């Protein structure tokens, strides 16, 4: 007998109101192909936790495509939303699916596993706190599962969960499970059978040797929301000035917390000011934390415009040359010597790749030189102020993404330094047209 499935709990109205807003959110990525049982796993999570509707399941059952086998439901049709994907039986681009349990809300970013679509895997994983990497217990880790784990770690995802699938096909063998655990590093390993439901939503009765949580249990209890614990960072998206009496700086808090009365520093000017009001549509606040969107009013007139940053606590680093881990995401790769537009927090600045060409889908170390000092935190400390994307000036396409680890050393050779200085002067002249940034 397979594991007992939980039916989704329907809460009565009063308990819904009692918990309103209290459920937090976990985003996790999945990757791989039908063969790993990825779609079966997602289908099971959605189905068992009430994230798929009857008419959608019925449409899947009625479809002329079915790769799951006679009499079984091909759940991949739920997430492979493009015609080309359903016809070819591959995932090309990331799909987002949603479900909730009484403890937590979830967003699944279901990403492609093929190398060709690495950029779409990175797109899906970039906002996740956890990654569920599927491994078929009979075959061990594949290239796709290794790539998923690698990109997840690169993007700073701390919770890499290795779901060792198809345990039913190896007689629920602990030895087979241990072999995968030893071969493939991860923060957690869970032996499951997506097809039978063992250790997905409910604990399996077939594997008494496994004492850890079922996958959903684990996903419900992973810690989230730690951006509030770093130093305060507010990249300014917009200066709000409805009339002469009001001047506020609006943006989404990228780290830490701010209280009325706090002394803050405006970057790049370095001027200090005191926070007099934290304004929102729903009334003023005494305190705000990441990732809330707020408008700050300061006690004195200081120069602050879009792309600037208001900070307190430990100062961010400042450098014209940065060292980063980057991914190349278009056919032309990332080319040493080429100039790109670098989008970081709410600003766009010209930047030149001075070290580390990368081919399409390549991942590696690069150095960039920027026309003016960039204020950042290492990506490992703060994802929002440590991440950037590179935009091609001609095609306008996003061609690369990067995670800053540190300031890079200044060039040693004088001639190189002179060249760089000349280039910087030239680029600085062009700066004015790039005062824009992200989000409303």
């Amino acid at each position: 007998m397979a594991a007992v499935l939980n039916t989704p709990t329907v809460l009565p109205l009063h308990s819904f109101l009692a918990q309103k807003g209290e459920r937090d959110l976990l985003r996790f990525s999945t990757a791989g192909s039908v063969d790993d049982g990825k779609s079966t796993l997602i289908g099971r999570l959605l189905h068992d936790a009430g994230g798929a509707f009857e008419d959608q399941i019925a449409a899947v059952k009625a479809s002329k495509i079915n790769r799951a086998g006679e009499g079984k439901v091909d759940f991949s049709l739920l997430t492979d939303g493009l015609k080309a994907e359903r016809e070819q039986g591959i995932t090309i681009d990331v799909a987002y699916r949603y479900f909730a349990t009484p403890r937590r809300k979830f967003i699944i970013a279901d990403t492609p596993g093929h190398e060709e679509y690495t950029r779409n895997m990175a797109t899906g994983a970039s906002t996740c706190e956890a990654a569920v990497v599927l491994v078929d217990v009979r075959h061990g880790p594949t290239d796709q599962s290794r790539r998923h784990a690698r990109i997840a770690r690169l993007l700073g995802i701390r919770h890499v969960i290795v779901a060792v699938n198809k345990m039913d096909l190896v007689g629920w063998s602990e030895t087979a499970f241990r072999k995968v655990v030893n071969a493939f590093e991860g923060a957690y390993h869970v032996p499951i059978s997506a097809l039978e439901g063992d250790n997905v939503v409910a604990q399996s009765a077939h594997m008494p040797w496994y004492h850890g949580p079922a996958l959903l249990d684990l996903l419900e209890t992973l810690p989230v929301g730690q951006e509030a614990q770093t130093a305060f960072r507010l990249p300014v998206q917009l200066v709000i000035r409805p009339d002469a009496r009001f001047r506020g700086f609006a943006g989404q808090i990228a780290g830490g917390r701010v209280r009325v009365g706090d002394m803050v520093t405006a970057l790049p000017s370095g001027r200090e000011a005191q926070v007099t009001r934290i304004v929102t549509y729903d009334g003023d606040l005494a305190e705000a934390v990441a990732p809330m969107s707020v408008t700050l009013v300061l006690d004195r007139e200081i120069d602050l415009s879009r792309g600037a940053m208001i900070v307190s606590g430990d100062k961010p680093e400042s450098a014209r040359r940065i060292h980063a881990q980057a991914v190349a995401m278009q056919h032309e790769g990332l080319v040493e010597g080429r100039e790109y537009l670098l989008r970081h927090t709410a600003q766009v600045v010209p930047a030149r790749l001075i070290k580390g060409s990368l081919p399409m889908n390549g991942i590696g170390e690069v150095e960039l030189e920027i026309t003016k000092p960039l204020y950042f935190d290492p990506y490992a400390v703060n994802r929002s102020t440590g991440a950037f994307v590179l935009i091609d000036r001609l095609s306008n396409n996003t061609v690369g993404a990067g995670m800053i680890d540190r300031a890079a050393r200044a060039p040693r050779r004088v001639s190189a330094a002179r060249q760089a200085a000349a280039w910087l002067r030239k680029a600085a002249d062009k700066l004015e047209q790039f005062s824009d940034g992200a989000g409303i």
Partner: protein
Amino acid sequence: MVAQFSRPCLLYSIGKDSSVLLRLAQKAFYPGKIPFPLLHIDTTYEYPEMIEFRDRYTREIGAELLVYTNQEAVAAGANPYDLGTSKCCHQLRTRALVDGLKHYGFDAALGGARRDEEKSRAKERVFSLRDAHGQWDPKNQRPELWSLYNGHINKGESVRVFPLSNWTEFDVWQYIHEDSIPLVPLYFAEPREVVVREGSLIPVQPNVKFLPGEVSETQVCRMRSLGCTPCTGAIRSQADSVLTIIDELKEFKRSERENRVIDHDQDGSMELKKREGYF
């Protein structure tokens, strides 16, 4: 979004998602006003309650409202009965939207679409690029990492921006409840005159034609999502307040857009419409 584009607008359909989006825009610029106009694509098959609500509410909050209709198609008598739903929708919604954006010179349009609505929408970026003809290329979308949205476009191209991408139907109703957002009364149950067509309840309006053998009846019902009068069904429901709707939602076993005839008129329906520029 506002900083990245020279002429943005908010696509206002008068539905619940648009209403939430509008509230978010008010919040984003508070205490300032929303710095862009609202654009409503009027198919001329809208419910009268929607038009009444639209005019009253936008006036109340002091927003600038623009309305665009594909007059040529209306003059030619476009209707779903003769053209079929697919062609009618293309003329009055997709064509009108693409032309409307061009007419006013908008290079970015905020919309209330959500990824949980439909499986091709589940694939869409928050900043979704459209070529000079307003078309979407789902196989070649820009990478979109973190919240570093790339709004750089070439002349003639435009971007659809979907801030509610990651909201679910439940989230929308919860927000409507917590923020007391006013809605068109069509969302709330009351006795209405309807015809039952292929299991859907189609409310009777002057422009809804009876098919042979159909008669009207009175049913207590409400709309779960709003579209054109002939192509959007109501559901049987007693839920007459936001809270009772939320309660009902938790027990739903069928999806929100099931009542939208246009999603089911061909395989991969929504993807095809979206490629051509549908919202």
